[in-house]
């Protein structure tokens, strides 16, 4: 499909979020900032979610991401997917990316479950024929039965997750980017989901996933990146990085 070898190359990536003052979003706020000049009270502060991160991942690698909440794991995954363009630095990803980030958003609430399967499948890069061929299997896995005929606005959160998960794991991934998805859905679904997720992850030619589960990381990843306050604290063999991370979390003088 793609002649160039699969790879993810992130170089000195900085990602900056505007936080706090929402006035910057309105015309009023904008006019006020013109009047008051930069440094006026409406200038919103920034948070750097990534402060110059460089990573190179090549075909065949399975990379785990660990770190505290807010350390920049999800942001780095979205940079790799091409969703967050870095403010400075570059991110180049070669190959078809299959992102699994959010399971509870991105639905057409007034359309049926079937229709949402089709739309989500298309957005993940499946062709209409592929989707039609996989519909029965996706439907069966979601266990939603007659609910698929109803508009998804009638669904519970757990049902959203099942639907999205069933579609997302039905694609043939080249580069698979996963964000903390293992805790999805109710318990019986999770067991089944775990099994399917493992099969799915085995297919990806590059896998990057963020997790708090050291067992999963050790099982799946030969390499792990430890993110800390927007920078890479350590990047190396999973066993070493996980050990150092555990030590840091357990030690009283943790950062």
């Amino acid at each position, binding site marked *: 499909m793609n002649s160039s070898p699969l790879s993810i190359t992130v170089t000195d990536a900085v990602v*900056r*979020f*505007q936080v706090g003052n929402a006035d910057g*979003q*309105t*015309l*009023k706020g*904008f006019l006020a900032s013109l009047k008051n000049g930069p440094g006026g009270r409406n200038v919103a502060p920034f948070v750097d979610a990534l402060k110059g991160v460089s990573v190179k991942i090549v075909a065949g690698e399975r990379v785990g991401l660990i770190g505290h909440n807010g350390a920049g794991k999800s942001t780095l995954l*979205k940079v790799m*997917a*091409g*969703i*967050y*363009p870095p403010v400075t630095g570059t991110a180049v990803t070669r190959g078809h*990316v299959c*992102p699994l*980030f*959010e399971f509870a*958003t*991105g*639905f*057409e609430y*007034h*359309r049926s479950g079937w*229709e949402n399967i*089709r*739309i989500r499948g*298309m*957005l*993940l890069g499946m*062709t*209409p024929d592929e989707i039609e061929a996989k519909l029965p299997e996706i439907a069966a896995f979601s266990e939603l039965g007659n609910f698929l005929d109803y508009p998804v606005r009638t669904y519970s959160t757990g049902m959203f997750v099942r639907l999205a998960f069933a579609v997302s794991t039905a694609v043939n991934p080249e580069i698979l980017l996963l964000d903390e998805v293992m805790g999805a859905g109710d318990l019986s679904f999770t067991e089944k989901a775990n099994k399917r997720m493992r099969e799915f992850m085995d297919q990806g030619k590059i896998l990057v996933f963020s997790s708090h589960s050291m067992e999963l990381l050790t099982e799946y990843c030969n390499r792990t990146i430890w993110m800390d306050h927007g920078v890479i604290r350590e990047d190396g063999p999973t066993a070493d990085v996980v050990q150092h991370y555990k030590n840091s979390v357990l030690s009283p003088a943790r950062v």
Partner: protein
Amino acid sequence: MSATTELLNNNLKALKNWRVWFHLGMADIRNKFARSLVGPLWILLNLTLWVGGIGTVYAALFHQEVQSYLPFLTIGFVVWGFLAQTITDGGNAFVFAEGYIKQFTYPKQIYVLRVMVNATVPLAIGIAIFFLVMLIFNNPIGLGALWALPGLMLLLVAAYFHASIMAYASVRFRDLPHGMTSLLQVLMFVTPIFFPVKTLKERGLDFIYQLNPLYYLIEVVRHPLVFSEPAAMEIYGVTGGYLVLLFVVLIAVAKRFDKRVVYML
């Protein structure tokens, strides 16, 4: 790769994924008429009622013959509706697609194209109704009406530019779609849709249409359809100039906001 080439590439990539935006746009249409008895037939009913009601009264008001006034009003109103819808819906294209933009990797332009599909369906139905009105009043339609095709192309391109500019700018300024809705309401009565442009000319009010690019976009489609001949050269000239201006503005806006959209949503 320069920012401009990257933008053009993204637009091309988005166009190539026509199945995605076509599907999304058509789903929007079906959604709009979900659980209604007559469905998209409402587009036809709305227009017929509107043109029938307003048309007969205004024809008397402006001393026009119903037979020539109704087709003129129909097509003017249909094209206006298309322009207005692409501008206001364009403003929501990225804002409403937040859930998609934040987790899928398609170029954002597919959400603008979705809006275009959504607005083109009523446009097509409206044009069909225009021909129906022409037939009912036994007005002649000549081969010259085909001049409407290049006109439609210009109209579609302009609408795509409008929608794209609105999509970017509205992410930054959330007031914009609301402001444009108000502005368009006023413009609808100032633009020569209900009255022929000669009414303005007779009173020395030419500037009212000359300053209004939307008039020219209507005229490139309306004139060939109503009179079966190309519109005046001046009309095509202004339209072409306006398209160039829109393109320059779009590139400037997109350069400034394209990479920031996802952070501002």
